[in-house]
């Protein structure tokens, strides 16, 4: 069986404001919401991408909609005006988060 990743149980969307990226992650099945809470702690998210996320990670929970919002400071290589990343908005970061493995969570 292929390794399971977050994309198998959740969907997500990325947005940017200045040098801050936010990725909201939503469980397809409410039963998987606790897994999101366990896997996507601010500490684990920051530790997964130490070179990318240079600031703090905050998390806001929306339990009744089975989703949470990750706000990652200084995560856009200076933001859309300064970044040399082809994706200077970090639009692709939703799939960066959705690529996290869930086997051990």
């Amino acid at each position, binding site marked *: 069986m292929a390794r399971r990743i977050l994309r198998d149980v959740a*969907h997500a969307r990325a947005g940017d404001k200045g040098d801050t990226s*936010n990725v*909201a992650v*939503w469980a397809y099945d409410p039963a998987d919401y606790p897994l999101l809470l366990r896997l996507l702690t601010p500490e684990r998210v920051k530790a997964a991408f130490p070179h990318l996320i240079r600031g703090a990670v905050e998390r*806001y929970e929306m339990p009744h*909609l089975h989703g949470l*919002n990750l706000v990652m400071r200084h995560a856009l290589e200076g933001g859309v*005006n300064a970044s*040399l990343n082809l994706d200077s908005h970090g639009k692709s970061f939703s799939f960066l988060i959705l690529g996290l493995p869930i086997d051990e969570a």
Partner: protein
Amino acid sequence: MAAPFRIGTGAGFSADRLDPAVALAREGALDAMLIECLGERTLAFGHRDRRLDPQRGYNAWLERRMRALLPPCRENRTTIVTNMGAANPSAAADRTVAIARELGLHGLVVACVEGDEVTDLLDPDTPFMDEEGTLRDVGLPIVGANAYLGADALLPALEAGADVVIGGRIADPSLAVAPLARHFGWRPDDWDRLGAGTLVGHLLECGMQVTGGYFADPGMKDVPDLARCGFPIAEVGADGAAIITKLASAGGSVTPLTVKEQLLYEVHDPRRYLTPDVTADFSAVSVTAEGRDRVAVGRAGGARRPDGLKVTVGFEGGYLAEAGVSYAGANAVGRGRLAAAILEERMREVHGIQGPIRIDLVGVNSLFATAGTPGAETEDVRVQAALRSTRREDAETLLWEVEAILCCGPAGGGGFRGQITPSVVTRSCLIDRERVRPRLRLEVA
């Protein structure tokens, strides 16, 4: 119960599609259409354009949008509320009046809302809104600074009977809040209703991002007929609760999943979504399927609006140079890596360029390179180089060196493309709202 107020989206960003807006203007039975076309960078580029030509600086597609949308909106008594004026609302309004006259839409009332430009009010020692430092620290020339105006700047235009309201830096959700507050008579301190209206504006302001755009992931999240995706419609009640839907004839889909994704798009703390109108609270928002492509949203709340208005300050940012060459077939990655190493050495050691240069191997690892994800195996790789500089010569050197790799680098390189684009830098600060004075000018076509 009174009939709901029908508000739809005519654009969710500066380059958004036009044909779905025309369909909505014709068939959507809309009371109001919001056309949101402004981002921080778009506005800064507008200031640059205006400096080159005093008649420019507004949305590049205004002419085509207005020609296509004014007739059906007039016919269906749909009020247009837009920030297409960007850095030059006055010229945008003049152009709109001229188009209306050309089209024979006599009597159309066009309102121009100005006063968002606050460049002359800012002290260089003004601190940034959300980071250390002051405007002075940027060390670059300012191209323009604009405060986010709210619904209170638009209401006098609507009360005067405007058919089209054109502004510059109007906060995106306020484009919906103003016609809703006008229609339902919401008081300026009815924070819960203003919060509910802000939720409607927030869900509509990015257009198709709530009807299936920016959403599809084939196999997991399929969206029907995305090539013909429709813009959203909100049917809003007097308490601000709404149904989000779209034209049945349009592609796309409206589901609790599409609505939830947009609910927190570019939101940080859901309890405190700050706009010029209200501190909106989205933390308890309900999202419920009410039938095919119909989703009910409610329970947004609000608290007192902030005393300071956010200001976007744009600075001249020099140049962004981007250039690439491709390798395919056996050992494409090895040849691509060699090209990247040669480029790095040429730029740093031969040309002595010190600033940041980034070289990605597209196909192996590019967007996630900084995140340190493992690369992929491929036989089709593009070496993509980028730098920013205030010196145009440095930008030109990058293009020259990347093109030279064709004959001077590894075997089988092809497909050189390169471009230099002007760059802007933006920062945010706050201004006391009492210092910002919106101005209204009405003109009849």
